[in-house]
């Protein structure tokens, strides 16, 4: 079975390919964009497309056999598996089948792709959160340093003051620290 993964995100496509390698003997190719000539040369049985690929509508349109497109392509929608179609849309992936491949084999490919897309989304969110946490910690450190300098507080007292401000206003510590720095910048007449 040959699987073409059309995904503008190379890291995610690599993750899908790695997941598929363990499933069954097959050939996987990744294309950041869909090229009909290249695709025809590879001859995929299944095309897995990311929903953020602009080429999805092109693939979707290959439903009719023509000279240039001898093997029609149809979207794989398996209604026998409740919730599968919905889960695939939410995961941001869809599968197109070339010719009559058995539903069970296509489903296994789609399921791997869905789980890998989910994994990638999770990793991306964790990374964003880690970046935000790091930025917030740096902001808090700078606000603490400002309070220590301007108010002659020790580090512990500066931190406690920030935390009190945070609790009084019901806003995150990082946001309170950012406000404090911005305010200090305004008073100084320059940028924070």
């Amino acid at each position: 079975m040959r699987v073409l993964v059309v995904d503008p995100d190379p890291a995610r496509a690599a993750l899908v390919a790695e997941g598929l390698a363990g499933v069954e003997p097959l050939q996987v190719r990744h294309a950041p964009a869909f090229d009909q000539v290249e695709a025809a040369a590879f001859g995929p049985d299944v095309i897995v497309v990311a929903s953020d690929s602009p080429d999805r509508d092109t693939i979707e349109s290959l439903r009719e056999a023509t000279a240039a497109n001898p093997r029609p392509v149809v979207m794989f929608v398996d209604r026998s598996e409740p919730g599968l179609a919905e889960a695939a849309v939410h995961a941001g992936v869809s599968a197109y089948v070339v010719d009559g491949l058995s539903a069970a084999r296509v489903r296994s490919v789609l399921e791997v792709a869905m789980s890998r897309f989910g994994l990638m989304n999770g990793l991306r969110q964790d990374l964003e959160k880690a970046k935000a946490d790091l930025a917030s910690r740096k902001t808090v450190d700078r606000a603490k340093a400002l309070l220590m300098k301007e108010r002659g507080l020790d580090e512990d007292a500066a931190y406690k003051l920030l935390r009190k401000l945070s609790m009084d206003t019901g806003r995150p510590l990082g946001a309170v620290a950012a406000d404090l720095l911005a305010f200090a910048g305004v008073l100084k007449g320059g940028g924070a």
Partner: protein
Amino acid sequence: MTRLRLGFVALNDAAALIAAGAKGFFAAEGLEVDLVREVSWATIRDKVDVGALHGAHMLAPMALAATAGAELRPLVAPMALNLNGPAVTLSSRLAGVIDPAASAQGLAALIARRRDEGASGITLAVVFPHSTHNYLLRDWLSRAGIDPDRDVRINVAPPARMTELLVSGVVEGICVTEPWGAAAVTAGAGRTAVRASQLWPRTPDKVLALAEAWAAENPEVVQALVRAILRGAAWAERNRPELAALLSEPAYVAAPAAVIAPSLEDMIFHAGEANAPDPAHAAWLLAQMVRWNHLPVGVDAAAIAARVYRPDLYRAARDSLAAG
């Protein structure tokens, strides 16, 4: 606040949705709307189908096709988002044979000559099989005796990639809604051969599409949503220069305002009851779908038109705005 997610594709005719957000009309109706930009129509359709989007900017024929078929949940269109906007842009070489009346007669002669010479055929691109663009292009070609299924090849490509395809010569003509026709002309890729408004005055193009079941369960939210978008459409109609600047922002259409501004010219967003989902438009689009075998056999076109196009929902919203 009711929180909603609405999808759109980067095109001028998403203006009413974008303006409703940017100008605070959603908020005034108690709606908190996330506008989600998608890069393909199939994804817009699927996300509305499974409820990942509450509604979307959608090709009118796509809403009709989804409801006519058995695989997807039925949709309703409580309002149209624009009239006019699609244009056929041809490579400079092809555009040279188009006569002042903008007919495809010269193109027919060129195709016949190329065939006699054994040269390769002409490939054109539209945005989706079920689209005003596909039907418009097919109608224009047919009027000059060109068979769109035999004499040319019609591919599908995403709007934002059209310019690149025309420049590289992969296709020799495109039919897409503005600003992407204008963007291709600005890039020197070709010339506008004919505008939708020249062929079919007041061309139906995009609608607001909602899942029928969700709309039935949430009548008040639907009314608030349609009122907000109607106000967005009215604003878009009257504030063209500011609209061009708004659409040009990276989160929306992301094309230069200088390209967008002139491409808005013949587009109608609100004037003359442009937002009324006109059953005559639905019937006309369905007739095109029948003509090109795009509807399942035995479908009752009149029933589909009446089910999808809901002027009753539009009128209720319009009247409550007028009363307020």
